[in-house]
C-alpha cells in the first residue's frame, strides 16, 4: 500500500491540511472541535481537505444519527414477521406465501422549504431507491406533509411546489401515491415537513442487502452521472435554518424520474436474473457515494478502494471532495462477484444506463480513494462509520408544567355555524384538491384510494391486500409527547383496522427541533417511548424510519412530529371495508366512549387560535378492544362501513361517512352537543344493516352505542341532549370540499 506521503492535493486552491486546521473550515461543515481533535488523534496526522469533508459528511447527524442513536436503539423491532429490521435501506416483514412487504419513510424537509418542487420530488425518488435497492418492486408511495397556514402567501407557494413535486416524480415513474396526510399550523411556516413513505413487494428469495462482502469483488456504479448538485446536503439537513436561506439553494438536488424508472427497472431485472452474482445493492442517498460505499464495507467488516477517475461525471473538473459528497440523484452502487461484472454491465447498458466498475472490496478495513494516480483519502472504515455518539441532556419542557389540568370548554351557542366552521378548517377540510394531482391508480392495484382512512393496495395474483397509512397529530405531542405518541400509533392502527386489515408494522419519521435543546431532546425521547408502548401492544414492530432534526427557523421549533407510517395485511381483499355509508336504513353505531377531550382539539384551536392545557388520557385497553371489535365485525361481514374518529371528533367522522356516497343520516347522541367535537381516542363510527343489528349488538354490547340511521335524503338531522340541528348535505359537502382550494387561490 502506498504511504500517506503520496497523498496529493488536488486543486490549486484546495486548502492544505494545515490550512484546514488553521482556518477551522471544518466547523462550517458541521464538525465540532472535539470531533476534529479526535480525528487528528486517531489518524495520528492532520486530515487533508478531502478527508475532512468525508468526516463532515459521515459524521453529520443525518448520516450518523450520532445524537439520536441512543434513543433510536430503544425501538422495539423484532417479532415473528420481521425479516429485516432497522439498519438497511428499508425494513421487511413476512406476509406469507414466500412474499414480503418492504417499507420505509424519508424526510425532505429542508430542501422542500428552499426549493419546494425539487425538494419534494427528490424525496420521492430517494425513498423509492431505498425500496428497490432491497430488490423489491415499489407498489405505493404515501406522504405526510406539514405546512404553515394558508393565509401566508409563501406557504401557498410551498404547498403548490411540494404537491407538484411529489406528483411530478411519482406520477412519471409510475408508482401510485395512494395516501398520506396534510395539515397546517403556523409553527411549520418556516419549516414545512415533507415526509414520504414507500412500500414495496418482494419474494423472500430475492432479498438484497447493502453489504460489500468478498475480497476482490467489484464495486459497480450505475445510473445518473455525478454532478455538483446537493454537495454536502447531509450537513445541510443537519443544521438549523436562518431566514437567509437563498444561498442554500445550491444544496438542493434535481430529480429525473425518467432516469430513475430506467434504473429501477434495470436493477429489479438484475436482481431477478443475476441474484447469484450480485453480492449487495445500496442506493446513494444522504452523503452520496461516500456513505453508500463506506457503509456497505463497514457492514461487511471489509475495506474498500475506489478510483474516482472512473466515476461517471456530469460536470467538468470535479474534485474528490465534490465527487464523494455530491447528492446527485438516481444513482446506485452494486457489489458484484469478481470477473462476473460484464453480465451486469450489459444489462444496464441495454437500458442506456451507465454501469462502471469503480473499485473493489478489500480486507484491510480501510477506506481508500484514488484520484489522478494518487491517494486522496486513506481512513479506517470502522472509525469513519462510527461517529462518536453524543449523550445529550434532556429536561421536561417548561410549558408542560404550566398547563391547566381542566379541559377546554367549547362554545357552541350556534351549533350549525360551529359544525360548518369545523368542516372548513384547513386541517379538517377535504384535501382532494391537492391529492387529485397524484396518480393514485397507476399499476391498477389500488383498492382504496386517497380519501378514506387507510389506503389499500391489492397484491396481484393473490387474495391479499396491503393497507397503509401515515398519521400523527402533533398538537397532542406538543401537549404531551409521550401520550401524544401513543395516540399517533393508535390512530394509525385504527385507520388500518377500518379497512379490515391487521396492523403488522411501523416505519417512522421523527421530525423534531434541535436536539441540542434539552427540551427538544426530551420530546424525542418521550415520543419514542410512547411509540414503543403501543407498538408492542399492537404487535407492530418498528422496522425502519428516518430522523429529521433541527427543524427550527430563527429559534422557532416545530411541534414534535413523529410521523407514523403503518402497514396492515388483509387476507381477503373481498372483505375490504370503506368509510362511506352504503344503504339508507342502515343503523349507525359509535364504538367507544366519548369524554371531555378538548385540550389540543380542533375546536380548541378554531375557537382560541391555540393549543393549550393538559392532554386528555389515552386508554390502551379501550383502544385494543375497539380495534379488535371492528376487525372481527368486518370479518364476520356484519358491518357496511367503518371510519375511525380523530381530529374534529364524531361530527367530522359522521359527515365524512355521509359524503362518500351522498347519503344523509338521522341521529340522536343523547349527550351534550359539545361532545360532537370531543376527540376522545379509540372510537369508530360503523353502519350495520338492520337485519344484522342483533348479531352485531351481541358482539358489541357494552362498547357500541346506537346513534341512529342512514337516510337517502339530502338532510342531515342531529339531536343532542342540549340542541338539535338540521344541515343540508349538499351545502355541507360544498364547505368541506371547497375550503382548501378557495384558500389556495389568491
Amino acid at each position: 500500500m502506498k504511504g500517506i506521503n503520496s497523498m496529493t492535493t488536488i486543486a490549486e486552491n484546495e486548502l492544505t491540511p494545515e490550512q484546514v486546521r488553521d482556518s477551522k473550515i471544518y466547523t462550517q461543515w458541521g464538525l465540532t472541535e472535539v470531533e476534529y481533535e479526535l480525528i487528528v488523534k486517531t489518524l495520528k496526522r492532520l486530515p487533508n481537505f478531502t478527508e475532512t469533508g468525508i468526516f463532515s459528511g459521515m459524521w453529520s447527524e443525518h448520516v450518523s444519527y450520532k445524537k439520536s442513536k441512543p434513543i433510536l436503539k430503544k425501538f422495539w423491532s423484532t417479532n415473528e414477521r420481521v425479516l429485516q429490521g432497522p439498519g438497511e435501506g428499508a425494513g421487511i416483514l413476512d406476509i406469507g406465501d414466500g412474499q414480503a412487504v418492504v417499507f420505509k419513510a424519508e424526510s425532505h424537509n429542508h430542501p422542500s422549504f428552499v426549493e419546494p418542487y425539487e425538494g419534494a420530488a427528490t424525496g420521492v425518488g430517494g425513498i423509492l431507491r431505498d425500496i428497490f435497492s432491497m430488490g423489491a418492486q415499489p407498489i405505493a408511495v404515501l406522504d405526510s406533509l406539514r405546512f404553515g397556514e394558508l393565509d401566508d402567501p409563501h406557504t401557498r407557494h410551498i404547498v403548490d411546489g411540494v404537491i407538484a413535486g411529489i406528483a411530478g416524480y411519482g406520477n412519471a415513474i409510475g408508482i401510485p401515491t395512494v395516501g398520506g396526510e396534510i395539515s397546517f399550523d403556523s409553527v411549520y411556516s418556516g419549516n414545512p415537513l415533507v415526509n414520504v413513505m414507500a412500500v414495496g413487494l418482494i419474494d423472500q428469495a430475492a432479498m438484497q442487502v447493502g453489504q460489500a462482502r468478498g475480497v476482490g469483488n467489484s464495486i459497480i456504479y450505475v445510473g445518473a452521472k455525478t454532478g455538483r448538485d446537493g454537495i454536502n446536503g447531509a450537513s445541510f439537513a443537519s443544521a438549523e435554518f436562518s431566514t437567509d436561506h437563498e444561498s442554500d439553494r445550491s444544496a438542493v438536488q434535481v430529480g429525473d424520474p425518467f432516469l430513475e424508472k430506467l434504473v429501477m427497472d434495470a436493477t429489479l431485472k438484475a436482481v431477478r436474473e443475476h441474484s447469484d452474482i450480485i453480492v449487495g445493492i445500496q442506493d446513494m442517498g444522504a452523503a452520496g457515494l461516500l456513505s453508500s460505499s463506506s457503509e456497505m464495507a463497514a457492514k461487511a467488516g471489509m475495506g474498500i478502494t475506489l478510483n474516482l477517475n472512473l466515476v461517471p461525471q456530469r460536470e467538468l473538473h470535479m474534485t474528490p471532495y465534490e465527487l464523494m459528497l455530491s447528492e446527485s440523484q438516481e444513482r446506485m452502487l452494486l457489489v458484484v462477484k469478481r470477473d462476473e461484472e460484464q453480465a451486469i454491465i450489459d444489462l444496464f447498458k441495454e437500458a442506456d444506463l451507465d454501469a462502471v466498475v469503480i473499485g473493489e472490496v478489500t480486507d484491510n478495513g480501510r477506506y481508500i480513494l484514488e484520484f489522478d494516480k494518487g491517494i486522496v483519502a486513506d481512513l479506517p472504515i470502522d472509525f469513519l462509520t462510527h461517529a462518536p455518539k453524543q449523550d445529550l441532556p434532556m429536561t421536561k419542557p417548561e410549558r408542560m408544567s404550566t398547563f391547566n389540568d381542566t379541559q377546554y370548554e367549547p362554545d357552541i351557542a350556534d351549533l350549525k355555524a360551529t359544525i360548518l366552521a369545523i368542516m372548513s378548517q384547513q386541517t379538517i377540510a377535504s384535501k382532494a384538491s391537492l391529492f387529485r394531482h397524484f396518480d393514485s391508480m397507476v399499476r391498477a392495484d389500488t383498492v382504496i384510494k386517497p380519501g378514506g382512512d387507510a389506503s389499500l393496495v391489492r397484491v396481484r395474483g393473490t387474495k391479499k391486500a396491503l393497507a397503509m397509512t401515515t398519521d400523527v397529530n402533533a398538537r397532542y405531542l406538543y401537549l404531551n409527547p409521550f401520550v401524544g405518541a401513543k395516540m399517533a400509533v393508535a390512530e394509525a392502527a385504527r385507520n388500518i383496522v377500518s379497512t379490515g386489515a391487521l396492523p403488522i408494522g411501523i416505519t417512522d419519521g421523527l421530525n423534531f427541533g434541535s436536539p441540542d435543546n434539552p427540551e427538544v431532546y426530551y420530546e424525542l425521547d418521550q415520543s419514542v417511548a410512547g411509540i414503543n408502548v403501543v407498538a408492542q401492544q399492537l404487535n407492530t414492530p418498528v422496522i425502519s424510519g428516518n430522523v429529521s432534526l433541527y427543524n427550527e427557523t430563527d429559534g422557532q421549533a416545530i411541534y414534535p412530529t413523529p410521523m407514523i407510517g403503518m402497514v396492515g395485511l388483509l387476507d381477503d381483499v373481498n372483505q375490504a371495508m370503506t368509510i362511506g355509508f352504503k344503504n339508507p336504513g342502515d343503523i349507525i353505531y359509535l364504538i367507544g366512549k366519548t369524554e371531555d377531550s378538548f385540550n389540543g382539539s380542533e375546536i380548541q384551536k378554531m375557537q382560541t387560535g391555540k393549543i393549550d392545557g393538559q392532554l386528555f388520557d389515552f386508554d390502551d385497553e379501550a383502544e385494543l378492544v375497539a380495534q379488535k371489535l371492528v376487525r372481527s365485525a368486518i370479518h364476520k361481514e356484519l358491518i357496511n362501513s367503518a371510519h375511525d374518529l380523530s381530529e374534529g371528533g364524531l361530527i367530522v367522522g359522521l359527515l365524512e361517512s355521509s359524503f362518500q356516497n351522498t347519503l344523509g343520516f338521522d341521529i340522536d347522541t343523547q349527550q351534550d352537543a359539545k361532545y360532537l367535537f370531543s376527540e376522545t381516542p379509540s372510537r369508530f363510527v360503523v353502519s350495520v344493516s338492520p337485519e344484522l343489528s342483533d348479531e352485531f349488538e351481541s358482539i358489541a354490547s357494552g362498547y357500541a352505542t346506537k346513534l341512529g340511521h342512514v337516510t337517502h335524503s339530502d338532510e342531515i338531522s342531529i339531536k343532542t341532549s342540549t340542541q338539535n340541528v338540521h344541515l343540508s348535505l349538499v351545502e355541507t359537502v360544498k364547505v368541506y370540499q371547497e375550503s382548501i382550494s378557495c384558500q389556495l387561490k389568491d
Partner: protein
Amino acid sequence: MKAAVISFPGSNCDFDMLYALKDFGIDVQIVFAKENNLDEFDAIFLPGGFSYGDYLRTGAIARFSPIMSAVTKAANEGKLIVGVCNGFQILTEAGLLPGQLLVNKNPGFICEEVPLKVVNNNTNFSNAYSLNETIMIPIAHGEGNYFADDEVLTELENNHQVVFRYGNNPNGSLNDIAGIMNEKGNVFGMMPHPERAVEKVTGNIDGQNFFKSILSGILNQA
C-alpha cells in the same frame, strides 16, 4: 389473433394494459420500442406513461422510436391501433390521429374518475356500449387538453370520429373531446384509462365494454 402492448422507455401503464387484455382472454405480449416489426400482431396498444420522460413535448420523442414505423405500417394495413393517455399523445404526434394534447387548462396533473359519454357506438372501440351511455373512467394526465384547428374539428364531427366526450370537461379539451378515431376507423386514441376500470375489486368495471368492443373488432377483422 395476437395483440402487442408497446413499451417505450418511460411507459408506465404497459403492464396494466397487458393484464387487462389478458383478463379478456387476448393473447398479448409486450414489445419494446427498439424493435421494428409488428407483422405478427393483429392489434397494437400504446399505453400510458411518460415516454422518454416527455420532457420536450408529450409523445414527441417516442414518435421517432423505431417501433413507430411498424405502428404506422400496421395502421396503413388496417390493423387496430389503440393509444391510451401517452399512447394517444404519441399517435397525434405521429400524425396517425389529428390534433394535439396540450397542457390542461388549469395546469397540473389530475387523477380522477370522470364521466364520459359514448357519442358513437358504431366503432371497433365502443360497440359494446349503448349510444349516449354515460360511463365513469379514470383520467390521469397533465396534458390532456385536446386541440385541433377549426377545420380539423369540423371534419372530426362530420365524420363522427369523436367516440367519447367528457361529461364534465376536466382539462379544457375542445368540443369536450376525450377519445377520437381516424377516418378509417382503425386507429383510436383516448386520454382516460379504461384499463384501470376492468375489475370489481378495484372498484370500477365501466371499462370492460371497451375491451369487449375491441375483442369483437379484432375477431371481425381476423
